């Protein structure tokens, strides 16, 4: 098998992992199982990034979402007092609404995929088949042309932090 053959095989394996765990995340009725399926989906997406030679993105995906899933599990366990008994089942209207949203998303994605002109070999990194091992260039882009969006995201995160800290202090508010 050629190198691209192996890559195709790996893609289908990882894609099966992503799709399977996404399905599991929807079907499961137990909150911890849902969270672990979510980890499978997000980790699989990280593997897809690795396959696309986007190492930095893949690694950051793992860092962010491993921690994120961890927190989801912790809260899932803490907020459901009897973690084993509770089964989460959606109402029929919720299922229908979800289906409609997903169908619209699928239609949109397929439409974009079908109408876009792909220039895969234009990128020198992709053409050579090597990972673009250049985090420094990425950082320069982030702090150069894309400085404003980057800083806006930082401000957003700061606002979230302040909001969380405010909400987490009910005792002090009552004292006032």
């Amino acid at each position: 098998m050629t190198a691209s053959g192996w890559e195709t095989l790996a893609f289908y394996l990882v894609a099966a992992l992503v799709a399977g765990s996404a399905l599991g995340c929807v079907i499961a009725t137990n909150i911890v199982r849902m969270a672990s399926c979510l980890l499978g989906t997000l980790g699989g997406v990280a593997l897809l990034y690795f396959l696309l030679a986007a190492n930095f993105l893949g690694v950051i995906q793992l860092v962010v979402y491993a921690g994120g899933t961890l927190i989801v599990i912790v809260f899932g366990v803490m907020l459901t007092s009897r973690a084993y008994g509770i089964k989460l089942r959606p109402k029929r209207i919720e299922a229908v609404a979800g289906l409609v949203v997903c169908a619209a998303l699928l239609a949109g994605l397929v439409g974009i995929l079908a109408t876009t002109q792909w220039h895969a070999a234009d990128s020198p990194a992709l053409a050579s088949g090597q990972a673009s091992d250049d985090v420094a260039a990425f950082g320069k882009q982030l702090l150069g042309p894309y400085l404003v969006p980057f800083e806006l995201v930082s401000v957003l995160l700061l606002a979230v932090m302040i909001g969380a800290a405010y909400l987490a202090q009910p005792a002090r508010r009552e004292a006032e």
Partner: protein
Amino acid sequence: MTNCVKLPLSDGFTSEHALRSRWGPDARRRAVRWFVVVGLVASAAALLLGFAATRTTDGTQVAAALGATAVAVTALACFATALVVRFAEAVGWLLARLAFLIFIGAVVGTVVVAWVPALLYQHVDAIGPPGTLTVDNLQASLGDGAAARLAAYGLWPLQFRLTRDIITMVGAIGFVSIFASFAIWWERKVAGRIQSRLGPMRVGGWHGWAQSIADGLKLVQKEDICLEGADRRLFFLAPYIVFVPALTIFLALPFSAAWVGRDLDVGLILIFAMLGVGVVGVLLGGWASNDKWSMFGAMREACQMISYEIPLGFSLLVPLMIAGTIRLTTIGDLQAGGFWTWLAFSNPFAFVAAVIFFIATLASCKRAPFDLPEAESELVAGYMTEYSGFRWALFMFAEYAEMFAVGALGAILFFGAWHSPLPASWGAELAHGAIWQQALHGLLFSGPLWLIAKGFFFVFVQIWLRWTLPRIRIDQVMYTCIQVLLPLALVILLGNTFWGLWVRNGSGLAIGANVVLSALGVILMAGFVWFVAYGFLNRRALVGTLAVDHLPGA
């Protein structure tokens, strides 16, 4: 059998009977005969296949040669087993006497075996760009004849990254297994010494060196238990979510500039991510066990890890900012010029960052004083309470693999990576000399042995702390992280930034800080050596005379 204690068994036989009926001289003679016969048949097959391989020229040649090699290995294994079984007493006696030499030999042998792929990769890469070579290209570099043809077929797969990754992962699994077996025995011996007792002494003869092997055999045979009411799928999945990331660390962890599975630009973040992913497995395992002890242990682990990832991340940023890259091999090679160029000694903030890094990794490896997730005296074994057998062993392997990985990572980031305290420039001629000169360079100046030695040193410090410090409470763990380490980490991050901006290389302040910190490092190391020597020379003052008489060298 004369000193065998006769224990009554349930069916009336003594243990001596049971032993004799299964492992008596007759059975052994039969086993030897069988092994010799199988070995003879296999060698005949190997000869036939080898003959066929020299006669044919097309694709069947490779198959025949591979088959011949496989059968020949089988034959050799059969003959060796027959010899061992025939002379079991003599072999056991020799093993017991020469255990230490065998251990040293195994370490050296492993290093040599690990060196071979590196040399082969070098050879293959010198011929042409990887991924495009054919067998004929490779044979042209080796010469004519059937042997060169076979060698070319052997070298051909080595040009692909997939093959190299597989070799790396197999090597990583081997390293982790051997290291974990060794470190568990080592930890028990160190714990014994610290508590004035002997630790394991029986299995294998010399200081119970085979204890971990015996433990491993026991664990493999144990029943694989899963409680009723547990979440079976997650319960069985969890050990792998812990173990696989611990292995993956070794894919990106460089043992030296050339000895690295994948020299990733994002190697450091990958290792950081893998330390975090392993925690999810711990949490899932603890939750899926459906057990209060496991749940408490898992929740503590989650709290601890989420909190300590922050100071850990900040302390990682300091060497990153000094080096200006995340590529671990580049960071390591910055520190080649003697111990005074090690990053921990480059400025005061980096020195503090090294301390914060060490404390945070103690917490992330669940080592004392942060071993609340598996606190034996309160939670039985925390998140691993309900696990048995091989799954339990996977948790242990992952823990020891992470211990070594963070020790080695600390060495790479702060303490000179794979370089010896001597400047590498002193040995520049050796590095490009003959093979033996290269080996000498690896021993004296920079090579994987130095990184492994430094990793072992940090593992030893972790063991030492575990058996010295008491465990702290969960609120104290959180206090240490959020109120002490986190502000300190922010201060050193800021301080390091300003140091990098304002203090020029070669200015008086930079050189002064470097000299003072290097001297501090030397004093700390000398103090450690002095403590060890003092303890050894005054061992008669210890409580347990039994332990004193069995100290190595006593």
